[in-house]
């Protein structure tokens, strides 16, 4: 009986340990957004060459705003695909670029692109948008081949944080090892995002402050975003 209990405990412990990768993150740097009740802002004119006026393609469903009014999140409905899209706005670019939008009732996170834009997909609007938060990156590093990573933005808590990087080639495959160094007391990086040449984006969960990224061929400029 004791053996069975200890096996169950060990299994549970292993399960808890493994779930670090899949568990939705509890971001320390999370900013709660509230429903914005004022008049919705004009529709975006980023609709490409569809031949339809923007208001026929997108309908702004809702808007959310942070308590200090710095973040504005617009939820749009794409009539063509039937999907919900989100557009995050902030006066500072490092706040809306590659920021996580968290839909707490769905336990899901969505990463915005360079323009603060992300696709939420075909989700239930009422249920999904009950509680919304945003988590901008706490630090951004730029890395070029053969050079040390350079910190290009960091919040005060991560000012001393550094990245130690190493490239390994295993056959034709190039792997980048990223290690967090000098992380402040009680600081924990929940997600690390690698943006390759401004395009491909890889979202990793650091283990023991380490991440191994397998890079596509010809990757040149890499940006690493850290989220607390």
């Amino acid at each position: 009986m004791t053996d069975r209990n200890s096996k169950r405990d060990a299994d549970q412990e292993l399960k808890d340990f493994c779930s670090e990768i899949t568990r939705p993150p509890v971001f320390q740097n999370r900013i709660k957004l509230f429903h914005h009740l004022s008049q919705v802002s004009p529709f975006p004119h980023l609709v490409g060459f569809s031949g339809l006026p923007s208001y026929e393609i997108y309908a702004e469903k809702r808007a959310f705003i942070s308590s200090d009014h710095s973040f504005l999140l617009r939820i749009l409905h794409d009539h063509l695909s039937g999907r919900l899209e989100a557009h995050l706005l902030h006066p500072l670019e490092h706040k809306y670029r590659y920021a996580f939008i968290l839909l707490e009732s769905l336990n899901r996170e969505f990463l915005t692109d360079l323009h603060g834009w992300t696709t939420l997909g075909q989700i239930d609007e009422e249920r999904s948008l009950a509680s919304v938060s945003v988590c901008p990156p706490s630090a951004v590093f730029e890395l070029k081949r053969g050079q040390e990573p350079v910190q290009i933005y960091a919040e005060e808590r991560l000012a001393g944080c550094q990245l130690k990087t190493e490239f390994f080639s295993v056959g034709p495959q190039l792997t980048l090892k990223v290690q967090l160094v000098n992380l402040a007391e009680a600081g924990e990086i929940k997600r690390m995002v690698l943006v390759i040449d401004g395009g491909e984006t890889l979202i990793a969960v650091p283990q023991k402050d380490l991440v191994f990224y397998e890079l596509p061929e010809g990757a040149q400029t890499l940006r690493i975003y850290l989220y607390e």
Partner: protein
Amino acid sequence: MAEERKILLRLLQIINNNYTESDLESLIMSMVRLLLPLIRKQSGLYLRLAGYQPRDIALLTISPLFIRNRQGRFPVLEKLFNWKIVEKFMVARETDFRRYLKNILARRLKQTFYYLSSEIQPERNKIKREILYALKKLPGCRINRENGRTLITIGPDRPGKTGLKLLTAIQSERLLEICLSQGLGGLQVPKFFKKLVEVLSEQKVTAEIPLNTLLEAYIETQKNYLLAEAGNGLVTWTRPETGTLITDLNSWLEELRARNTQLLNRYLARNKIDKKEMEAYTKALNDLLQDWQEGGQEKSLFTYLKKYAPEISSEEYRREKRKILEYLVKTSRDFLKTKLHEQQATAGGI
């Protein structure tokens, strides 16, 4: 259903993009379970010395497979287990898939060790060379190289003789116990092995063990000595398998690094050091902490600092820098002592 079959079905769900969080969790767990025996077989004490437990290595090996892109897909995992492969194994025998999966995991495990080699190898290699050098000079030691393995015989001659016991690689823990109980910690390599030969002669024991086992015994003894010394001798030896102490030590060191940064910031605010010097102090202290973890301080404090501030002369160091560095080292040591006292008190050791 066999574990491999479950893995295959979960992979199929991921490829079809209709998986749940619990599917992912089970897949990761299954892979970790398959990897753990391989890791235990391949790794010894040195992983724990570097602060890694087998399950850390397992998760580090698997985690690159679960890196997502913005669309929520897993590029690496889906490249390894694409439609064609999964479809093929759906109709193949389970043993075939098991072999394929094990090959992939074993290959990736090898890569993980390769990626981590800078953390777990160089210091060991240096100590290994020192040990070999010391053993060559020491009477009562023989070094045999067979099939690429280095076997060391240490202790009185002719172990087969009546009254002499032979200690083999299987009894390596007994050797570690002898080193710890005879207080060999804190000794430099030559003295350590000279004393070990004496102790083994007294106890009429001859050890015939691989060089790597001897190296592990040496490192573990030094590490235990450091912890015991910091705790004013209140720490009694416990089996090295207990991962708690290492986990605690890692978190203490993290805390300590943050405290050192705070102290240096104060020096900076008072214009006692500049930013460049602050960086050099931080890096020197980090190296020292690393050495403390790996057996103890290896060189003078001046050498630690000079590595990152090469322009500094010994006069300048004595005149201006030594006070600061010695103070930081002292507070760091005191911090670790306090933590060990607290841990002992909590565990009822005092």
